[in-house]
């Protein structure tokens, strides 16, 4: 079948340890290989940077909460079309939306940035068919979605009763029913409390009526995850997000992982992934005394190898915040008084949505921006610290190139600081001005593909240019031997690739979408004996408490688009 050779590029592939060597990449039948015939199509990458396709470990791009965000923000689309200088139609469909792009724009934009995999960070199990409908309509990129478990009534009961085996059987059943990828936890216990208008702001606040604490939920789910040996670890958005002083809760939460070791066949080394840690690294006791806690948090992360994090960098845009952390969004809305959506989901989870403007002329926003970057700059091991904006919460994913620019260039950071109204106060409350570290392309490759792929347990398929991996490749118009002194050119290079290949098909050429080949839904199939107790419990809850029949709950096969199962055996 088809053969391609990418010639003379500068290769950055942390999975293989290649740090900018000039080499060729061979592709055959959609996979990376070591050699191809002379008939192979040649792509000239001389003077360009070659990396594996980007892997986004945490993003909100498909599903009910994302879509309600799209629905409730027509103004996010106003004058953003080509009509007034926006994106001209390139693919099969028009591209709409800025902070919450349409599914079509989402796929096209990721591909143009050289990304080929995205992990949807929160799927309400009851709404799984919706998530899969949107996956079908998101072109080019492979997508996995993580069901949320941190406020699930079944998990509460099993963990409270210390029935890890039953909890594992339930998790396995739900991953299968929803075609989900791994265990997501959002504000453990707090979202259930929010169903009564309450919250859990420390890891020891009891969940109303359930006689369990967030700490117990997190530990129980770590044990469950390692019992099953899932490709990814638990993926945690902890308690008390976004409040001044929350870094202490974060440290308490991270310490819950102490003593746990990863158990899996996928090369994953962490037991806990703490997502968008920028939002969890705030010091101070009010908005007035708000300051960066990035150093304290990263000191802990740096010295504990069983933890990974993603940064959740603030991009200083008007965006839309959305999370399964229902109480957080309510309180955010009490601060900014823009519109507020909330969806509590029976027995499982909740969510909230509030538009938000990270205004460079507001002191707190400036400090938040600094913290996101500090997290990455303090990191000692960038294979454990990943680039995200918690899209769209801290900013749209289409700003990743801008975050890369800030990480690679102190000059760019200073230029942004200079535009802030309260520059001096931002500097006083953060570390950013004193940090002269500038990341290189190898480190960017760690943060954007190799690291996330490894943490997801998928590095044999994604985020790698090693033989046998999917031929997902980004070729950037950036010469590593001659990095431009103007940081804007770095951003421009990462915004639109010279080429993006998805499974060996050129999908972007010269910054334009040129093909929309088939794509996968990645999910985790746990093979384990049926657990009679758990199936009994499931039937009972569906009879008594759910409003959807059990037989209509699991996503029908015909509604799952191109599934690609990651198989796990549990005896």
């Amino acid at each position, binding site marked *: 079948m088809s053969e391609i050779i990418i010639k003379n590029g500068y290769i950055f592939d942390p999975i293989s340890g290649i740090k900018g060597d000039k080499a060729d990449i061979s592709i055959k039948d959609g996979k990376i290989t070591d050699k191809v015939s002379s008939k192979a199509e040649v792509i000239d990458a001389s003077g360009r940077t070659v990396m594996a396709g980007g892997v986004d470990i945490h993003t909100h791009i498909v599903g009910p909460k994302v879509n309600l965000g799209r629905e409730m923000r027509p103004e996010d689309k106003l004058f953003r079309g080509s009509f007034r200088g926006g994106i001209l139609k390139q693919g099969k469909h028009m591209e709409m939306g800025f902070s919450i792009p349409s599914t079509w724009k989402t796929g096209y934009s990721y591909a143009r940035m050289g990304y080929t995999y995205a992990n949807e960070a929160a799927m309400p199990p009851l709404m799984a068919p919706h998530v899969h409908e949107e996956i079908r309509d998101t072109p080019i990129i492979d997508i996995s979605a993580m069901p949320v478990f941190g406020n699930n009534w079944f998990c509460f009961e099993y963990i409270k009763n210390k029935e890890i085996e039953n909890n594992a059987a339930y998790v396995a059943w739900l991953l299968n029913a929803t075609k989900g990828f791994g265990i997501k936890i959002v504000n453990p216990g707090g979202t259930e409390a929010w169903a009564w208008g309450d919250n859990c702001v420390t890891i020891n606040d009891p969940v109303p009526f359930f006689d369990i604490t967030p700490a117990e939920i997190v530990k129980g789910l770590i044990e469950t995850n390692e019992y099953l040996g899932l490709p990814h670890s638990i993926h945690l958005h902890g308690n008390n997000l976004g409040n001044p002083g929350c870094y202490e809760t974060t440290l308490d939460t991270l310490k819950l992982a102490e003593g746990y070791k990863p158990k899996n066949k996928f090369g994953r080394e962490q037991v806990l992934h703490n997502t968008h840690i920028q939002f969890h690294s705030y010091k101070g006791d009010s908005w007035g005394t708000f300051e960066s806690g990035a150093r304290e948090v990263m000191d802990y992360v740096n010295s504990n190898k069983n933890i990974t994090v993603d940064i959740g960098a603030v991009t200083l845009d008007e965006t839309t915040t959305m999370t399964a952390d229902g109480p957080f969004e309510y309180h955010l809305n009490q601060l900014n008084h823009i519109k507020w959506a909330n969806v509590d989901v029976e027995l499982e989870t909740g969510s909230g949505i509030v538009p938000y403007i990270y205004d460079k002329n507001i002191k707190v926003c400036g400090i938040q921006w600094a913290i996101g970057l500090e997290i990455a700059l303090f990191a000692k091991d960038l294979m454990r610290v990943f680039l995200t904006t918690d899209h769209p919460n801290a900013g749209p994913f289409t700003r990743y190139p801008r975050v890369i620019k800030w990480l690679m260039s102190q000059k760019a950071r200073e230029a942004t600081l200079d535009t802030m109204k309260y520059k001096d106060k931002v500097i006083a409350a953060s570390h950013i001005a004193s940090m002269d570290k500038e990341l290189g392309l190898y480190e960017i490759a760690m943060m954007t593909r190799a690291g996330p792929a490894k943490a997801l347990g998928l590095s044999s398929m994604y985020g790698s240019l090693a033989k046998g991996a999917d031929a997902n490749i980004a070729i950037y118009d950036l010469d590593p031997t001659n990095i431009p002194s103007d940081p804007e050119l770095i951003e421009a290079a990462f915004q639109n690739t010279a080429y993006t290949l998805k499974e060996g098909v050129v999908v972007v050429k010269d910054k334009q979408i040129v093909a929309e080949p088939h794509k996968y839904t990645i999910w985790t199939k746990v093979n384990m004996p049926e657990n009679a107790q758990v199936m009994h419990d499931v039937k009972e809850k569906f009879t008594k408490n759910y409003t959807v029949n059990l037989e209509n709950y699991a996503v*029908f096969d015909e509604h799952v688009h191109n599934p690609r199962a990651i198989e796990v055996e549990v005896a």
Partner: protein
Amino acid sequence: MPKVIENVGCPYCGCSCDDVRVTVSDDGKKVLEVENVCAIGTEIFKHGSSDHRIRSPRLRQPDGSMKDITYDEAIEWVAQHLYKAKKPLMYGFGSTNCEGQAAAARVMETAGGMLDNCATICHGPSFLAIFDNGYPTCTLGEVKNRADVIVYWGSNPAHAHPRHMSRYSIFPRGFFTGKGQKKRTIIVIDPRYTDTANVADYHLQIKQGHDYELFDAFRMVVIGHGKDLPDEVAGIKKEKILEVAEIMANARFGTTFFGMGLTHSDGRNHNIDIAISLTRDLNKVAKWTIMAMRGHYNIAGPGVVWSWTFGFPYCLDLTKKDHAHMNPGETSSVDMAMRDEVDMFINIGTDAGAHFPIPAVKQLKKHPWVTIDPSINMASEISDLHIPVCICGVDVGGIVYRMDNVPIQFRKVIDNQGLLDDETLLNRIADRLDELNAQGA
């Protein structure tokens, strides 16, 4: 042997009940019996296997009569007319699965036209309110398991959503609501003493068209300005307002269900907008949610599908081809009809002939009119072309969105007997349009 199919979704109202039991004939062509379903749902399943069902497209002839044509001919007719029209409008989708709605999006993006759904004359104002003020809501199971105070405002589920009260709101016993109706307080606000008001603890017989004032009054009480209330607001005495506001503020978990009484009266979206503001206020003192009583079993569907496709739930202007525009009042079906803004009309999965004000029907009828619908209805009987299709939930399955935006997977219960489903039909029209566009370019 007749076959029993369980867990079937009911294609009638926004309750989207998924517990229907249907018995079908041995050959899979006839519905013999339907259980667990309201009186209206029963009729749909019966109609699905009726001998009177239209099974072939029909084209109006110069003498006014209708003549059977093939699907191929019908597809060609629609594609050619869409291609020629400067601003065609496709409207409907109350009775179409999401797959069909996605295919419709493709057709109208390809054609460069207007795309709208029944919400435009129904809960469209609710969308406008959601745009302006958000939507603090929940799934129906939350109401069942937690709610102790229920408000039906301008909605009459006893008639419009026959199983709503028994499955989700007033009567069911849930996890924290083991006593069912006994421990729930039901408040109905409606200018009529409806059959729903008949089962309520409180009926506030509001002066029609003055809901906004009453919401304002409730908000004053919640925020602490109860003493500043006038003696009467919208026909309701101050004492009664204070009493009911107190019940709402003391709820453990409350839900306001609202309907056409708010969306169709003066102020439209503003009546819902202020209801959302009241909901937000109540969350300072209680837990409160709000939900639109969406009419059809999948009328939430197009809003969901088109939001991820284009970013807007309805009233879409796709004429510019590389970006979408939406502004109800301008891009809404009835407004466009009355202003004579469009030059072709496709009525799909609804009956604009019966449900639009007659002046709007007359305006649209000045241009080519296509009806895509399983039934004979007013729209089909005035159209130039009627294309029959499968009924979602009867002879084709698919995903539908319940009134709380929970996706429900519908099953097919009988054989389609040669009828095309919406998705297939629309994709074939889009394929043909692609060809015409390619030839034209």
